[in-house]
């Protein structure tokens, strides 16, 4: 069978990597990458079509190329360097998804749609249960920003799934994706020399490794293996949980606890000055944290991530330079202290 895959958002690192990965799949005959700007990285043998998914032209692309699998990865929290501010990102996320799904609905060849969503659909609130499952209703719906975009996108996807019951629709809700080449706002945050945190809160964080993200997207975009089902909604996260305090210590970067109103205010100022894209919902995530359950991912989707949350983070930290307080030298200091104590020498050896 001729497998033609259309991937949106290929100008981003993750999209580019995914395109390069699925070309090697024996089932895939043709890969078409779509984005509004030309990617800086190479896409291998894939065809690149410069098209904006916000415009109806995308329907023509689908019709002309006979695409049967659509992988929609152009749902992002932050703009890609030149593409402008938050308004255009929101438009790409919401209007782009609407247009793309509308085009899919009109294209009879489409059999499978994969959406890269995010666990931000659950929001972050102190009154939520500690662990979200796929059908936990959030206590407080995200009021704006990327989180609201994802909620709206998923709403359109559900509508599409109702109208085209013959299409297998897979929504993957990713936890924070980290990896050597990750360019997410969270990666930017971890690159700061001193991490500002919210005083009195220690959020629980979960990470997914880039490689795992690529692999699960590939599983969702191909025929389901025996005994698994790859349509539906799945939380995707590595095993285990790290606290922000733990993360900062493992990264060797000191934290700077600030009062919550200060953090919110500083975030607003920095955003309006255009220095950073740190959004309010990211501040909420770094205040209250978010943990999702991944039983469905393992049992129904049949995906077992290669990296745990801690391993993902270790891999990410290795790619970054050492912080102001590298854990290795701190450990050495303690060891030296232990060696200096005369009483310690006897029992240790």
């Amino acid at each position, binding site marked *: 069978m001729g497998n033609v895959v259309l991937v949106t958002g290929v100008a981003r690192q993750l999209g580019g990597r995914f395109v390069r990965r699925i070309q090697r799949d024996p089932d895939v005959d043709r890969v078409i990458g779509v984005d509004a700007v030309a990617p800086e990285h190479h896409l291998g043998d894939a065809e690149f079509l410069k098209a904006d998914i916000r415009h109806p032209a995308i329907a023509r692309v689908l019709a002309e190329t006979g695409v049967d699998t659509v992988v929609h990865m152009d749902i992002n929290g932050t703009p890609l360097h030149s593409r402008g501010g938050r308004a255009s990102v929101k438009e790409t996320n919401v209007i782009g998804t609407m247009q793309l799904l509308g085009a899919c609905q009109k294209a009879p060849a489409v059999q499978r749609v994969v959406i890269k969503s995010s666990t931000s659909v659950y929001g972050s609130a102190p009154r939520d249960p500690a662990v979200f499952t796929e059908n936990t209703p959030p206590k407080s719906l995200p009021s704006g920003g990327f989180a609201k975009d994802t909620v709206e996108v998923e709403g359109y996807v559900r509508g599409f799934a109702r109208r085209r019951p013959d299409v297998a629709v897979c929504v993957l809700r990713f936890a924070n994706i980290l990896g050597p080449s990750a360019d997410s706002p969270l990666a930017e945050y971890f690159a700061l020399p001193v991490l500002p945190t919210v005083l009195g809160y220690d959020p629980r964080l979960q990470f997914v490794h880039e490689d795992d993200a690529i692999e699960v997207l590939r599983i969702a975009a191909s025929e389901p293996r025996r005994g698994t089902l790859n349509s539906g909604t799945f939380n995707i996260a590595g095993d285990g949980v790290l606290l922000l*305090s*733990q993360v900062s210590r493992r990264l060797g970067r000191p934290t700077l606890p600030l009062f919550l109103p200060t953090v919110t205010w500083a975030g607003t100022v920095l955003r309006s000055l255009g220095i950073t894209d740190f959004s309010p919902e990211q501040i909420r995530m770094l205040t209250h944290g978010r943990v999702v359950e991944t039983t469905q991912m393992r049992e129904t989707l049949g995906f077992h991530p290669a990296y745990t949350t801690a391993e993902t983070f270790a891999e990410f930290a290795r790619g970054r330079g050492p912080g102001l307080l590298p854990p290795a030298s701190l450990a050495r200091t*303690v060891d030296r202290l232990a060696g200096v104590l005369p009483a310690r020498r006897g029992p240790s050896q």
Partner: protein
Amino acid sequence: MADAKVIPFGEEPRARRKARRTGRTGRGTALAPVPEARSGPRPVPAPQPAGGRTLDERIAGGLAFLRRRITGDYEVDDFGYDRELTDQVLMSLLRPLYEKYFRVEVKGVANIPAEGGALIVANHSGTLPLDGLMLQVAVHDHHPAQRHLRLLAADLVFVLPVMNELARKAGHTLACAEDAQRLLERGEIVGVMPEGFKGIGKPFADRYKLQRFGRGGFVSTALKAGVPIVPCSIVGAEEIYPMIGNAKTLARVLGLPYFPVTPTFPWLGPLGAVPLPTKWTIQFGEPIPTDGYPAEAADDPMLMFNLTDQVRETIQHTLYKLLVQRRSVFF
């Protein structure tokens, strides 16, 4: 029974209570060996060997602990429970309060299963939730298997800064059916105080009078997880902050469920926040099994109400019994 008011519970239970009361006089001697049994496993808990360790070993242990902490080399579970921090630091901070200040006496700790999940249902009192923390220390220090109690706390705890961080690290989580069931299915001991703010913020005149047990959600959670319910009665917590008034307007302004006025608070400022050194007793009752019910039983409201009442009455009667046995509030 001091001056606590006794409220009767209707006809049928009264007969049962009578039967139980006669049973109690018989059990008065049966209860005596319990402290002995408790002193048996005493040498097992960590503090005892810690005291026996040499200074070198303690320094080495402390440095190893410090090394793990500053390099972030420790693990937390999905709920943010930091077992190492709880065992080494938080429990050590609470233990003086537990052993020296409130001199907690624990009875019937063998009623908590040594393995597998169980739901401990306790009464709630004392204006500030110190009873929950003491219950946690009691289970950890006295149970032969050193089980860790995972408390379900009100959402207010997770809204407040610092509090939420400490609560999560000590293994507490939000009191909702999802979290409770997840913990029970993992085989944890979960502690719940179904009276909630109604129990903890009740006036001093209503002490030891159990309030409504929520909507009985804890029973259906235990039933779904198939774990036993262990009723637990805590005596002594009611008198730590005798709440003689409630500044409702101030509470509403501050967004709190109640604002306590005690003989010392807020008049003496922070000094008024020192609890009275009452003598506490924590008694764990016979576990109520829930695994004999069919799967759909959790949706049967009548059964839920009956089981809730059964648990509530057990706790209330045990409270009365303990109050009768108590010599004085402070000794």
